[in-house]
């Protein structure tokens, strides 16, 4: 790759890496697996950078690759291997921290959603993609995004409502 193109790539990665990792983690719920998804995404992006850099919506293009890697992760045998191991001490800390406990509750609720629905929720409400951009990233119809979004929100409502009740003193 020509140096100026590579500089553009480095600049893009530097600005997006942390957020892409968070997106991947919200999707798959495993830090190491999230690393693998992001690594595969950015490697594919590097190889196709000349073409990708000319895309009208580079972020959309990148999300499309990332989501595809996540949704299609059954291709290799090790796709279900947990790629990490949390030391026991970390678990204790998480359990003792009320706020972290709440976040874990949300992650647990996200994990119960079907993968496609989870992807819609994460792209819409974490990455702030519009309905149209989410549809483009997932390569599906706008109507499908809307219906998946509605179902996902309905499933997460109880977790979010519980939190709201705590904040408001549990008023009905």
């Amino acid at each position, binding site marked *: 790759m020509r140096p100026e193109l590579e500089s553009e790539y480095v600049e893009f990665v530097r600005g997006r890496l942390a957020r892409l990792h968070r997106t991947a983690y919200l999707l798959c719920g495993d830090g190491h697996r999230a690393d693998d998804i992001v690594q595969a995404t950015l490697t594919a992006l590097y190889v196709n950078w000349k073409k990708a850099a000319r895309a009208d919506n580079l972020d959309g293009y990148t999300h499309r690759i990332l989501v595809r890697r996540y949704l299609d992760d059954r291709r290799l045998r090790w796709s279900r291997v947990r790629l990490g*191991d949390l030391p026991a001490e970390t678990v204790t800390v998480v359990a003792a921290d009320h706020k972290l406990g709440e976040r874990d509750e949300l992650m647990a609720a996200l994990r119960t959603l079907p993968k496609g629905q989870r992807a819609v929720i994460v792209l819409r409400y974490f990455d702030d993609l519009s309905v149209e951009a989410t549809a483009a990233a997932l390569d599906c119809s706008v109507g499908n995004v809307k219906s998946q979004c509605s179902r996902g929100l309905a499933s997460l409502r109880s977790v979010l409502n519980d939190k709201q009740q705590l904040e408001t003193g549990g008023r009905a």
Partner: protein
Amino acid sequence: MTLEQQLRDRLGTVDVPPSRLDVGNVLAAGRRADRRRTVQVAAGTVLVMGALVALPSVVFGSRGTQHATPTPNQSATAGPPPSGDCTLTKLPVPRAMKNLSARGVDPTGRYIIGVNVSGKPGPKSDPDSADRSQDAQPVLWTDGKVKTLPAPHRSIRLTGVNAGGVVVGLAGDTVNDTVWRWVDGQPQKLRNPAGSWDFSYAFVNAPGDVVATGDTGVLVWRAGSTTATKLPLETGAEVRAFTDDGTLIGQVVSLDRTKVTAYTWTLSGAATKLTAPDGRNVEIFTARGDWVTARIAPAGAAVRWNRKTGHLEDLRLPFPANGINGHGWVVSQDVLVKDTGPVGLTDPTGDFTAPSDIADNGLIVGILNDYQTQNPETGEPDNQPVTWTCR
């Protein structure tokens, strides 16, 4: 605050484990992939185009032909492994199959299983079911000759084959809820106990017994039987290998998925805790015979060890191991680690390669795909089934 706003706020504050990626290693990985794509033929590597039928019997069906058992006392070294010792061969593909992967090989190297995946995963496959799995057809190569197996379901993923050519696979529309066995090429549905099941692995050993790990337990179907027995294992048990003497090797994962304890089990469910020879906790990738390859907790290093001799070796692999053979040879993403060290399983044209399994005669099976050509339907490069034979 609206529900949507609450969700936005909370997704932004979820505690995310630290990433091991940085701009430097991302860039290095991109450059490596790009080099693989563009660099010319590595010295000595030969690409043999066309069918495998003409290959000598040393590759297929050579039960008596084995490499000398290694004494792996040399550590794999970091950095790009040398290539040139391995010959890549494209396997024959049935007409109309465009995205076919070789997924496993029996210990003799005679039988290779494959899966042809078509259609898209996720939402567009079926707007009413976001998680409908892709269509997948089962394929078996016998002595290099390809045959499409009868498919009782539109989405079947083969996961195991034994030296007698008995094949096992998983099927289902959204989850893998059924295990199938092919004997002499004919499918048999293996019945589940009552309840809903989502299987992640199925193995068949030399006597023909089948073991599958489901989300609610581990099932065994004895050779010739289609009735399952649920093994009395701890909740969270996952079988990762099934040896020919009937030993199950795997682990128990805690409900919050933060703790892994490896075990061997007998077919009656008797458990023995399995730790690395140095006492550290392990997470099993796979095993064959006495050889095991695993992640050592908590550092994440990939190791191999021999359960009989206790020999332990850090392979320093950046990816999990996909296969190990009866001599302790390990395959991971684009690399074979022999007793003498790593060998690159590269493709002379630079396409992406991923080995999935290795036979005892050294035959490696896997996929080749080309970043340059994307399937317009899936948006992904198509897979081609390949083998490597290594000196």
